């Protein structure tokens, strides 16, 4: 195929290919770039042909991975060339070289628009393609109407319309407001009648995006989708060129079934019947054939059908048919099918009633854990983790432990965390649990976070029966030649506390225990030494009759450390030494640790939070896609985050311990700042608060309640919290992490917390902290943003832009361009609520630190409930009002499933937090809640809203919500809002207010309350304060 005579380009490519090493290649590239640069400088002399050639060369160089930081202007300028060949090159190179955030693109908007509204079909195609591939928000705002016109035009040919459909999809992703829901349902329905399959395929992608955001508006499209599916899958009524290996457009089939998964149910019995017929045909009629592509295509359809069946919660019979199919798949030779079989089985776990059938395949799944393919092993691990319960935990966990020794490095961390979580969650007995965790530490100590071994200590301390067993085990492990440091910590702690219980066994005299611990002493780091010192002190105390030789030995050690540079070690050594000279007085001071208060495991809590996230995503797949693409946008704009972060549902399970401590830290941080009243000071409060939080976070597991009470032995009691020095070490990883520009704390969690309260931290990274304080009055709101520079050098190019949704009028006062070092600026923000909506305003914030440009997009907590004012309503007022609002659209009712099970009292709390006032006594049924509130907006003025929630005590995961108000939009929005609250529960309210008990976890030991991360008293703990200052 000819290069259209572009010889220069071919020669350049050949030259590059002939380079024998990277260095030569670089020289050749540099030479070429130099040449291009000079040619571009006197642009006047360039013919269009030359320009085209150079621009292609630039793209080639870019593709090779070299920075091409000039010539973008020339590429963009080709777009406005009058002739097709130049224009084509301009469009295509621009869309490859630049991304949507590039400034040059803005310059092109007008030219692009002219091409779109012009009469030239080929130009339209070029323009739509580029906008569809890299168009950003500004394109969305200025071009969406024109693109819509093309899509709907009857005079445009399919080749333009299909491009317009996907172009509009891109613009919609960038700004959902460009598609006005009201008119679009009809248009979309019309588009789904399209006969041209190219246009229909593109339109279906657009439809999937629309319906994923708001299925309510598109009910009329549902039967059309079923019809399309029927036409393709049953009637096979498509032109020959649209069949792929004999299958009628598998892609369109998949997309159509994907769209159907966004509708909660299918009510019309006829449509439902037709759909199930088609699905049944797909499930039964897909055979494994020789041809790989045919096989893949038919299975792509089959797996999508499976997902749809699961979603529709079909009859039990069909479900077990699905599980049987999946069971067949996970045993086949073809690796893709095996992979997908495991993946879909994991998704299937969400469906009730099938777990038991899935358990039948346990042996096969465990076998997949040894598959040669790591992708498949990962799916098997996920599935085993998901299907584990009390009945099979022992088998599964032991299998995981066994696998751990041979597992590749990439999986060990995840594997050990999952094993630890399962062991705790489903332990049949505690000695088994202790045994499992010790094995884990032994085999994969590097991946065992402090949380995990703290938990073991907690269980052992609280269960007397367990103590001798744990001590014996610890003793056993210390005999091994190479012991992981974590094992040294936990063993030393346990043997210090309970070693004396072993006294009569051989090899377990105090002296022997001391020796076996002390043997490890030369190999451990400073974080472990304080634990060893405490253990020695306890051993000394338990030695009866006193053994002078041992005593002298231990004293020598204390002596040695009295001059240690580490303050914690020094203090312990000095105090233990002094105390141990007091003889019997030691007995009281070093008595056994009191029992820990029962609390939920930090690990399990994290796992549960992650599960809720995951469940939410699949339950109402809503926004999932959008969130994903937002995440990409956000990371992209902050150069320090070089790759997209994992989506939320990955958190918790596969995280490094250091990051997870960050979570605690963020919540603790918020609590503290609230406790301080306002955020008026940035310096030095926040940094010390951070450090405190870091220490206090993990420490929450420790700190026995008795310790604070023993006031007379104040110094000692604080030392008894032995591992708290180990916690001090937790600062290190966190500190390191802040060096790369990660936001501190979870942005989403912060946002959710701020939705329920009026001040706190909205965002924080190593350079800046953005606090927020808000006051709300009727439909007006006044927010103040506190921008605090945490550093000793100024932050420059500060920019804040508000992207308000249509229903809010937001005015931001001027934001200074520079924030001086260690200073804080306040930026007031006025908000007026025009009408009810759940859309959220976004703060587009950027600044420069050094050479780093940081840009984040933050949701502002100016959400629906902020415009609510709780109001008590008596029975006389309530019932007439309730009756007068008789039905849709003023009164709406919906059964909500997938609700997070909550005690009624807590649900009431939850509603209270959202400014809905619970009116007790109005509903005779004690399982129901009635609430009232007033909503303020410019269009509705003050409007009374009534809410009734009926719960089912037998099944707390579902409830029925009824909402009534005088405005149909308000009713609808409020209903959706309440649903969101009940399904997605923001982390239990931190800070002031009653500690809300969480639902008890299935293990006997894990119990509420969980929000103990920071106890106010802990802030007075001198040890913690001291460490905070370090």
């Amino acid at each position: 195929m000819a290069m259209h005579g572009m010889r220069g380009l071919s020669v350049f490519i050949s030259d590059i290919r002939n380079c024998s090493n990277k260095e030569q290649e670089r020289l050749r590239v540099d030479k070429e770039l130099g040449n291009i640069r000079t040619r571009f400088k006197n642009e006047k002399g360039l013919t269009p042909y030359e320009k085209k050639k150079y621009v292609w060369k630039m793209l080639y160089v870019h593709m090779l991975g070299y920075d091409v930081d000039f010539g973008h202007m020339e590429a963009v300028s080709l777009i406005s060339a009058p002739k097709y060949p130049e224009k084509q090159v301009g469009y295509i190179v621009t869309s490859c070289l630049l991304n949507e955030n590039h400034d040059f693109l803005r310059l092109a908007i007008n030219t692009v628009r002219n091409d779109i509204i012009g009469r030239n079909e080929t130009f339209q195609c070029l323009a739509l393609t580029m906008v569809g591939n890299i168009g950003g928000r500004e394109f969305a705002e200025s071009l969406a109407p024109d693109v819509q016109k093309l899509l709907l035009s009857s005079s445009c040919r399919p080749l333009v319309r299909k491009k317009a459909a996907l172009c509009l999809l891109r613009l919609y992703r960038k700004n959902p407001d460009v598609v006005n829901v009201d008119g679009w349902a009809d248009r979309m329905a019309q588009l789904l009648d399209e006969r041209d399959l190219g246009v229909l395929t593109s339109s279906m992608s657009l439809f999937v995006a629309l319906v994923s955001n708001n299925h309510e508006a598109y009910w009329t499209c549902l039967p059309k989708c079923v019809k399309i599916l029927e036409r393709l899958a049953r009637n096979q009524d498509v032109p020959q060129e649209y069949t792929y290996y004999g299958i009628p457009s598998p892609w369109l089939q998949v997309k159509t079934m994907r769209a159907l998964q966004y509708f909660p149910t299918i009510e019309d019995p006829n449509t439902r019947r037709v759909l199930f017929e088609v699905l049944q045909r797909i499930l039964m009629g897909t055979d494994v054939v020789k041809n790989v592509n045919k096989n893949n295509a038919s299975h792509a359809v089959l797996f999508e059908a499976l997902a749809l069946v699961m979603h529709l919660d079909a009859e039990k019979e069909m479900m077990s048919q699905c599980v049987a199919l999946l069971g067949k798949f996970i045993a086949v030779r073809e690796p893709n099918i095996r992979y997908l079989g495991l993946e879909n089985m994991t998704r299937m776990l969400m469906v009730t009633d099938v777990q038991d059938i899935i358990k039948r395949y346990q042996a096969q799944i465990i076998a997949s854990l040894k598959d040669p393919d790591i992708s498949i092993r990962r799916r098997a691990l996920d599935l085993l983790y998901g299907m584990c319960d009390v009945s099979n935990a022992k088998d599964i966990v032991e299998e995981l432990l066994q696998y751990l020794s041979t597992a590749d490095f990439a999986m060990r961390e995840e594997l050990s965390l999952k094993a630890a979580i399962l062991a705790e969650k489903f332990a049949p007995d505690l000695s088994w649990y202790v045994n499992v965790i010790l094995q884990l530490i032994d085999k994969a100590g590097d991946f065992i976070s402090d949380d995990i071994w703290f938990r073991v200590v907690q269980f052992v301390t609280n269960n007397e029966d367990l103590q001798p067993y744990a001590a014996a085990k610890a003793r056993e492990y210390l005999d091994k030649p190479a012991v992981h440091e974590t094992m040294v910590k936990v063993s030393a702690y346990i043997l210090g506390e309970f070693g004396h219980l072993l006294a009569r066994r051989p090899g377990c005299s105090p002296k022997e225990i001391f020796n076996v611990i002390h043997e490890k002493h030369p190999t451990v780091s400073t974080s472990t030494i304080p634990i060893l010192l405490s253990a020695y002190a306890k051993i000394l105390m338990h030695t009866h009759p006193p053994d002078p030789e041992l005593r002298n030995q231990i004293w020598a050690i204390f002596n040695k450390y009295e001059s240690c540079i580490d303050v914690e070690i020094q203090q312990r050594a000095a105090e233990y030494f002094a105390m141990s000279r007091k003889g019997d007085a030691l007995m009281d001071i070093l008595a056994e640790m009191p029992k820990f208060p029962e609390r939920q495991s930090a690990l399990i809590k994290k796992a549960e939070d992650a599960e809720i996230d995951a469940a939410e995503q699949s339950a109402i797949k809503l926004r999932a896609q959008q969130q994903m693409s937002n995440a990409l946008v956000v990371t992209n704009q902050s150069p320090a985050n070089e790759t997209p972060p994992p989506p939320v549902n990955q958190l918790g399970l596969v995280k490094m311990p250091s990051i997870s401590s960050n979570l605690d830290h963020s919540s603790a941080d918020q609590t503290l700042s609230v406790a301080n009243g306002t955020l008026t000071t940035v310096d030095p409060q926040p940094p010390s608060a951070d450090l405190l939080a870091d220490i206090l976070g993990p420490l929450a597991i420790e700190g026995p309640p008795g310790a604070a009470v023993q006031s007379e032995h104040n110094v000692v009691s604080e030392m008894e919290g032995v591992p708290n020095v180990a916690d001090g070490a937790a600062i290190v990883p966190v500190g390191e992490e802040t060096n790369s520009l990660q936001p501190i704390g979870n942005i989403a969690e912060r946002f959710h917390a701020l939705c329920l309260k009026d001040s706190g931290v909205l965002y924080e990274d190593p350079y800046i902290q953005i606090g927020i304080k808000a006051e709300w009055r009727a439909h007006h709101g006044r927010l103040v943003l506190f921008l605090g520079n945490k550093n000793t050098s100024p932050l420059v190019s500060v920019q804040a832009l508000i992207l308000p949704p249509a229903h809010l009028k937001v005015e931001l006062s001027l934001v200074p361009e520079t924030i001086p070092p260690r200073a804080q600026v306040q930026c007031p923000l006025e908000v007026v609520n025009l009408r009810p909506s759940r859309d959220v305003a976004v703060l587009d914030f950027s600044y420069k630190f050094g050479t780093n440009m940081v840009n984040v997009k933050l949701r502002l907590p100016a959400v629906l409930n902020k415009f609510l004012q709780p109001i008590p309503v008596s029975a006389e007022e309530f019932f007439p009002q309730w009756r007068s609002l008789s039905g849709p659209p003023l009164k709406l009712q919906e059964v909500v499933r997938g609700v997070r099970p909550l005690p009624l009292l807590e649900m009431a709390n939850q509603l209270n937090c959202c400014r809905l006032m619970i009116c007790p006594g109005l509903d005779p049924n004690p399982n129901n809640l009635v609430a009232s509130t007033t909503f303020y907006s410019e269009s509705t003025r003050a409007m009374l809203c009534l809410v009734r929630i009926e719960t089912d005590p037998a099944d707390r995961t579902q409830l029925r919500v009824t909402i009534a108000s005088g405005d149909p939009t308000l009713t609808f929005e409020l209903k959706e809002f309440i649903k969101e609250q009940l399904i997605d529960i923001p982390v239990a309210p931190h800070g002031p207010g009653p500690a809300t008990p969480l639902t008890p976890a299935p293990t006997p030991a894990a119990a509420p309350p969980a929000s103990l991360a920071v106890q106010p008293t802990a802030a007075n703990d001198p040890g913690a304060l001291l460490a905070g200052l370090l």
Partner: protein
Amino acid sequence: MIHFVLLISRQGKVRLTKWYSPYSQKERAKVIRELSGVILTRGPKLCNFVDWRGFKVVYKRYASLYFCMCIDQDDNELEILEIIHHYVEILDRYFGSVCELDLIFNFHKAYYILDELLIAGELQESSKKTVARLIAAQDSLVETAKEQANSISNIIAQATK
């Protein structure tokens, strides 16, 4: 949604990159480096999917070239695998038994064809015939323009003689 498409040779040379989600130049380089490391080292009889930073990468090897597409966790993997094959078939038809060399020297063609297949990271056209027709039409537009330019430059050349 497809976030990006990569064509990488067995030696790790990049033959095509197309980004549907915004990545800066630096991020692009990092993604390519990371994924080359993951994918090129995978053995032959394994599945065509790898987990990567919370996304999934679907890839397939054709002779010396790896075609990779990055998608969201819950997208349909096999559907994407066959989009790759669909693309390869169209390239094959266009170049007449395509090989890596065709794509090296005609990399711009590979981009044109991809643009007729995908927009916004979604499939635009599933008929090979239609895509072939549109590409042929584009080629002839370019050819015509060139002929015109030639004839004009001839006229000018003759006139100025």
